[in-house]
């Protein structure tokens, strides 16, 4: 609740880190205010600015482009309806990410989706066309196994690796999006990596024998 008594939606969440400092990119000047005033162009700008990262998050979780688009649309419809309560002092991106991830897991639970879509095959073909020499070495089998292992992660850990390793957000930014502390986010990433490694080792996919040298660190 705000001091003025109204509940505001935005990047705020429980367990805020960094002493309340907002670390995710600031919103374009006055966009939310213009949306509140009923400017339709402002809402389109809002969609263009934040649609892509939200869609990437939804797609990475669901692995279904159609479902990801549905979730994106629902997410922005909610943002439009909540425009009078959106915060103007920070970016709405963490809130949008949070709404999108919640919608993803709700839909997944509802549909009991089998997460083996055709997009994996397409992306493999795309990867073949654009692969660089260092990427060719990556075993497709291991990647496939990893995809299954990522799907098997608990939702919070899955979100953590997507925010941290796919979007490239810092720990503090990821924590802000997930509405948790930096320590919690670090712990989620750590346990996710541990679970992935255990799963790969169980499937005999761990790249044993690969040794790191001090100079590589």
């Amino acid at each position, binding site marked *: 609740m705000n001091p003025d008594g109204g509940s505001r939606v935005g990047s705020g969440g429980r367990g805020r880190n960094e002493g309340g400092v907002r670390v995710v990119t600031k919103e374009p000047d006055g966009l939310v205010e213009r949306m509140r005033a009923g400017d*339709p162009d402002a*809402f*389109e700008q809002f*969609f*263009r600015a934040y*649609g*892509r990262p939200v*869609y*990437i998050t939804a*797609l*990475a979780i669901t*692995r279904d*482009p159609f479902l*990801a*688009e549905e979730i*994106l*649309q629902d997410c*922005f*419809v909610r943002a*439009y*309806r909540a425009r009078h309560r959106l915060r103007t002092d920070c970016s709405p991106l963490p809130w949008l990410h949070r709404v999108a991830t919640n919608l993803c897991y709700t839909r997944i639970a509802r549909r009991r989706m089998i997460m083996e879509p055709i*997009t*994996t095959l*397409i*992306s*493999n073909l*795309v*990867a073949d066309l654009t692969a660089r020499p260092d*990427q060719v070495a*990556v075993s497709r089998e*291991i*990647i496939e196994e*990893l*995809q299954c292992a*990522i799907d098997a992660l608990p939702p919070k850990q899955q979100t953590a*690796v*997507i925010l941290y*390793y*796919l979007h490239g957000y810092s*720990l503090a930014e990821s924590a802000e999006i997930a509405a948790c502390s930096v320590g919690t986010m*670090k712990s989620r*990433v*750590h346990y996710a*990596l541990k679970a*992935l*490694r255990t799963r*790969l080792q169980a499937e005999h996919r*761990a*790249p*044993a*024998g*690969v*040794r*790191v*040298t*001090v100079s*590589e*660190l």
Partner: protein
Amino acid sequence: MSCSQVRRELEEHLAFREEIGPRSGPHLVHLESCPTCREEMGIDRELVKNLRHALQARVEGSALSQASWELVRLRTVERPEQRWTVRALHWRGMASAVAAGVLMFSVATGSATLPLPVTGSPAFNASFERRAAPPGEKVGNPSPISTDRGEADPPPKGGRAEPQPADDGATTYDEPPIPGRVP
């Protein structure tokens, strides 16, 4: 320095892109002399690298369709928000439906009370005049609906009540006294 300490320290470096500072010096010295730790660190490094590839593969080659914004626009900007009067009408309609339901339920269960004639209405006046008029005198009934429902003539004094036709057409009599019982 144990292997687990070294791994814990360097795992963080691999997982969280942390800088190797002066405090990592002893760990690196250990790593140079320990092939097991080197192998473990190699596995972790490959895992993070493959994880990035796997996540990229999930979203590679996909883009938002052109129709996305149009669909969002149709559901938001193009859709006029309902005014409070429209919402109130919806509530009124719902209230009427609820009232009708309650009425139908009470009629069906027989608990409905028929409306009594209102004082001053023609029906009330006719009923009042009928009660006030001497027996045998006809009173005009201005209402086409009979209002003397349930108004029966008093039984003759000292006599037995005549059988009255019941609503269902059957004839009813007074209950006879039980023999041997003092009334």
